[in-house]
C-alpha cells in the first residue's frame, strides 16, 4: 500500500478547476518534486495532502485513511501526527525564540521537550542560535528553524511549499542537504518548487498544468545533491 494516494481528485472554485481529476501515488520514503506554472494548483494540492483543505471530489488516502471524509478536528489531529509543513514565508512565531518555535510543534503534538528541540536545531546547524528571535535570524536560518520544526515530531511526510523560494543559492543548498538527510532517514518528502535545480534533486518530478498532471519525470541518476548549472 502506498503511503499517499490521490484518486480522481478535484478542487473546484466556482468555474475554476484548481485541481482537475488528479490521481497519483507516493510511496513511503519517496522524494517527489512538484512543478508547474503559477496558478496551476500546486499549493491547492499540497493543502489537500496536508489536511488543511478538502477536495471537492475524489479520495485522498493517507496511510490507508480517506482524509477527504474526516472532520476538521480529526484533520488537525492527523496533520499534527503525520505531517511536517515547511512554507515559503517560513511563518515563525515572531515573539518566540528559535528553540521555542520548535517546541511549539512539540507542544501541540504532545509534550514540549527542550532537549529534543535543541537536538533538532543542532541537526539543522543552529544550536548556537537557539535563543534568537526570528527577527535576529537570516532568511536561511529561519527556514532551517522551520525544517527543525517540521521534523521534530517524526512526521511520515514532510510537505514543503516553495521552501527555497526566498533563499539564495547557498541557503538553497543547505536546505536541500537537510532534505537529503531526512530522505536517507526514510522520511517521505513532497517539495513544490519553481526552481528546476531544486526539482531535479528529487527522485521523481510531477508537473501540474491548469490543475492536471501533465508530465512525470523520473530522475535516473538520483544523488540527492543539488548541482548548479553555473
Amino acid at each position, binding site marked *: 500500500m502506498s503511503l499517499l494516494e490521490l484518486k480522481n481528485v478535484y478542487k473546484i472554485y466556482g468555474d475554476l478547476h484548481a485541481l482537475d481529476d488528479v490521481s497519483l501515488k507516493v510511496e513511503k520514503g519517496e522524494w517527489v518534486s512538484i512543478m508547474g506554472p503559477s496558478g496551476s494548483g500546486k*499549493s491547492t494540492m499540497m*493543502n489537500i495532502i*496536508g489536511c*488543511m*483543505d478538502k477536495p471537492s471530489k475524489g479520495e485522498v488516502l493517507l496511510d490507508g485513511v480517506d482524509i477527504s471524509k474526516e472532520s476538521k*478536528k480529526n484533520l*488537525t*489531529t492527523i*496533520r*499534527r*501526527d503525520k505531517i511536517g*509543513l515547511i*512554507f*515559503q*514565508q517560513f*511563518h515563525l*512565531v*515572531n*515573539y*518566540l*525564540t528559535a528553540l*521555542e518555535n520548535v*517546541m*511549539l*510543534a*512539540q*507542544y*501541540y*503534538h504532545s509534550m*514540549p521537550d527542550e532537549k529534543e528541540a535543541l537536538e533538532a536545531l543542532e541537526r539543522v546547524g543552529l544550536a548556537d542560535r537557539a535563543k534568537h*528571535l526570528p527577527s535576529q535570524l537570516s532568511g536561511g536560518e529561519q527556514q532551517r528553524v522551520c525544517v527543525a*520544526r517540521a521534523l521534530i515530531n517524526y512526521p511520515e511526510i514532510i510537505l514543503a*511549499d516553495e521552501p527555497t523560494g526566498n533563499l539564495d543559492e547557498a541557503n538553497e543548498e543547505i536546505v536541500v542537504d537537510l532534505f537529503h538527510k531526512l530522505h536517507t532517514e526514510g522520511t517521505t518528502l513532497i517539495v513544490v518548487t519553481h526552481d528546476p535545480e531544486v526539482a531535479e534533486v528529487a527522485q521523481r518530478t510531477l508537473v501540474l498544468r491548469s490543475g492536471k498532471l501533465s508530465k512525470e519525470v523520473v530522475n535516473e541518476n538520483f544523488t540527492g545533491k543539488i548541482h548548479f548549472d553555473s
Partner: protein
Amino acid sequence: MFLRMIKGILFRQWKKMLMIAFTIALGASLASAMLSVMLDVGDKVNQELKTYGANITVIPKESSVLSELYEVEDSDKVGAYLKEDELGKIKTIFWAFNIVDFAPFVNADATLDDGTEVKVVGSWFDHHMELPTGEQLDAGVASMRSWWELKEGTWLDEQLLDDAENGAMIGKSLAQRLGVGSCDMIHLKGKNGECELKIVGVYDAGGEEDEQIYVLLDTAQALAGLDGSVDKIEVSALTTPDNELAEKAAKDPSSLTAAQYETWYCTAYASSICYQIQEVITDSVAAPVRQVADSEGAILEKTQLLMILITILSLIGAALGICNLVTASVMERSQEIGLMKAIGAQNSSVTLLLLTEIFITAVIGGTAGFFAGFGFAQIIGRTVFGSAISLKPMVVPIVAVLVVAVTLIGSIPAMRMLTRLRPTEVLHGR
C-alpha cells in the same frame, strides 16, 4: 510552553497589548471612580443627614398655627410652651425604640454687663433619664449636635451638676466678638433673673448657633422665668421612607380606612411617629423636618443615576474599543494563528492562548485603571462634594467583574473570527 508563549507575548510584544490595556484601564478607571463616588457619597449624605440629628421638631400648637399664618419664626414671642415633665413620654410611644435622641430647648434673651444682647439657649447636654419602662437613656445636644467642633475647653458635663449649673458654652463668633474664652466668667441678666456663668467651652457650629450661648435647661428657664416649660423639642428618630400611604396620612390621618390606619400607625413613617408624639405631648405639633432631606435625597438619586449612566456608557465604549483592538490584533496575527493551527493546534487551545493574553492584559489594565479611577474619585470628591472619598471594599469585586465581563464580551467577535480562520487562507502569502 503555554507560559513561555504568554511570557513571549507580554515581554516581547507588550507594545501591542498596551493599547488594549490602556482601553481597559480607561473603562475601569471611569467605572471605579463613578462607583466609589456613588457608594461613598451616598453614605456620606446619609451620614450627614443623620448627624444633622433632629428629623422631627415638636413645638406648641399655638405657635405653630401663628408661625404658619404670619410666618413668624421665633416661637418664644408667642407665649405658648410645652411641658417639661412630659418629655419622658416621648420614649413611651409605640415607636419608642426608633427614637434615638431628643432634647428640649428654651430660648432666653439676656443682656451682658456692657449692654450687649445675646441669645441664650437652654437644653440638655447629656441628660440621664430613667424611664418608666426601666430603660435608661442619655439624651441631649452632646449627641444631637455632634457636628459641633470644640474650639476650646470642654463640653458642658451635666453629670458634674455643681459646675454645670453655672457653666455655659459659647459660640465661636460670639466669643470672638466679646473677647472671651474658656474659664472666663460672664454675667447674664435675663427677663426674670440674672446669673454668673463660667464658660467651659467654645464651639464652632458653622451656623447661627455660633452667635449663641448654650446653657443647661434649668439655667435658661431661670433666666427667662419659664420654670417647667420648653419652647421646642427636637427628636432624632429612625424612620421608614415615605410612600403614598404615608403622604396621605401626613395630610390627614382621619382620611385613612381602619386597615390603612393600622398599617400606617404600625410603620415607622416620620408622619406616624409625629402623630404619636402629638398624642403624648399636650398641645403640641410635631412635624418632620424633611424638606431638606428629601431634596438632598432626590439630588443624590439623580446624581447616582447620572453616574450609573456614565459608567455604563464608558463600559460600552471600552467594550467597543477592546472589540476593535482585539479584532485588529487577531487580524494582524492571522498568520501566526494559522500557523499554530497548521502545526496541530485545535481552535480551543488557540482561543485559550489569546483569551489568557487578553485576560492578563485586562488584569494589568484594570488594576492600573482602578487606582487611577480611585484617584479620579478623590478629585471628584474634593471638587464636587468637598470631601475625600474613602475606598469601599465593594468597589473592587464589582470593578473586577465588570472588567472581565467587558473584556470577554469585547473579545467575542475576535474569537469567532479566530475559530473561523483557515490556515490555508493565510499561510501561502496571497
